[in-house]
């Protein structure tokens, strides 16, 4: 019970919720800001930044295709 009420627990849950939301937005639109599908480096970077955080938390939420075409 104490664990459930600890500030750390709430902070972590809030972070996970936010991260899941960001990932969902990214997976849907390819971008958080423009609504355009990726094509620019910025979006690619955002994706990889998310991957970095997800890796640190042990939460691979990235849903890229199995085959990602290289240019």
């Amino acid at each position, binding site marked *: 019970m104490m664990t459930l009420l600890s500030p750390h627990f709430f902070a972590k849950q809030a972070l996970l919720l936010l991260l899941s939301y960001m990932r969902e937005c990214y997976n849907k639109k390819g971008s958080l800001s423009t609504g355009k599908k990726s094509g620019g480096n910025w979006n690619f970077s955002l994706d990889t930044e998310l991957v*970095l955080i997800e890796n640190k938390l042990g939460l691979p939420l990235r849903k890229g295709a199995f*085959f*990602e*075409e*290289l240019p």
Partner: protein
Amino acid sequence: MKKVKYIFVSGGVISGLGKGITTASLSAILKSKGYQVTAVKVDMYLNVDAGTIRPQEHGEVFVTDDGIETDQDLGHYERFLDISLTRANYITTGQVYQEVIRKERSFEYDGEDVEAIPHVTDEIIRRIKEAGEKTQAEIVIVEFGGTVGEYQNSLFFEASRIMKMRSPEDVLQVHVAYMPVPPNLGEMKTKPVQQSVRMLNSMGIQPDFIVGRSEYPMDERRKERIALFCNVFKEDVISNPDVPSIYEVPLVLSEQNMGEKILKKLGLGVGGKDLSPWKKLIKTVKTSKKEVKVAVVGKYFATGDFQLEDVYVSVIEALKHAAWANERKPKLYWVDSEKVEKEGPEKLAEVDAVVVPGGFGSRGIEGIIKAIKFARESDLPYLGLCYGMQLATVEFARHACGLSEANTTEVSPKTPHPVIHIMPEQEKLLVGKEYGGTMRLGVYPCKILKGTVVYNAYNQDKIKERHRHRYEFNNAYRSEMEVKGMVFSGTSLNDRLVEIVELKDHPFFVGTQFHPEFKSRPLRPHPLFVSFIKAAVIRK
């Protein structure tokens, strides 16, 4: 003795706009005119070389024959010039400062007050000239990393200004700058280029040529504006638009007679040779319609300024060269090994071949091992490079030799079956924290067993390839794996180090401890990659 000519290539507005490709293309054009050309990359960081920089930060670490770990642009220069460069072709701020401080400590400045100008600039000039001397070049093209206006590259610009001041007829300045086309305007803007040239002017540098990088070709009106505001002749404003293949850039610049214009300004004669091998290559690139699908399997990792493909640029280019040599259109896919770990490798049946490139660390390796197992068991052509070779032996030990806990000590230091382990001399270096430039680096000879897949590819029994590794195959497992069908088809001359492994009864399953991708050139594709793609085409 002929006077050496120097061309400095600087960048403006943004980084990553293709200065390296422009420099490489210019080198190829001047080489095609019959001149001995070399290219030098100057990186502004304080690292002595690129070996200690994270790949996410830096992109690919390219290794030369003489074993320096450099920027990926040296790879472009080698591919376009079709020559092997040396450590003299790569200069960093770290190298320059290290040498200046060494000289100061050993009293080589005779008690002088050592200052940025002239001592640091003199060291920069000495190194640039040395690059020309060592390669016996008639023309040295020097690319400055970063963009004009950064504090850290000002001493290099100053060195180029001094060289021009001392010998104006032997030095040219080429400025490559970005010309944006804002989507809301739909019009190419020249103002960023103008601002960038003003910054150059403020350092006492007047560009002789301005190369406008943009999504689209530059029209006459834009050329006129740049000429007027940047104080250059209109014919010296060169358009360098996006093109489908980077190997088309020499043709784009050549169509605007950039080579002839440069040679004229340098007081050199215009040679009679042409770019016909490049034209032939581009024709193949454009006319090859049948596809060959290759999956590059590795762990997905976050990148900073660089894209994932930058980390494996030489592998990707080598695959393209080999596909074109087989008259195939390369379709290359990245496959995240963590996805293979979770979803299984079966989807790999959709491609014609699998590559596992060099890598590091433990994340995602079980997915790579699953992919290798799938390739081995389903006769899918496989090429493992460095880490890809090491993990191929781990996979074989686990699933073909029954050593289920086999691993590399890089991932599992206490594995009961260390199929891959650290080289004894490397272990000592790591204990002493001697990380910089201490891997087994550069070219080493390798003898090849006759009658093997790799012998058929190279058609030679002795080759030289470039290396970058600390771990090696553990010879204690050699005979056990040989019995089960692994062929150690390439070893060091003293037989101690396993350089190449392959499998009996598989159309193409090859792993190399070295990096053949570093020696593949568009006009001279690497034989191992050509054979690999050929196997993929046959399977198809």
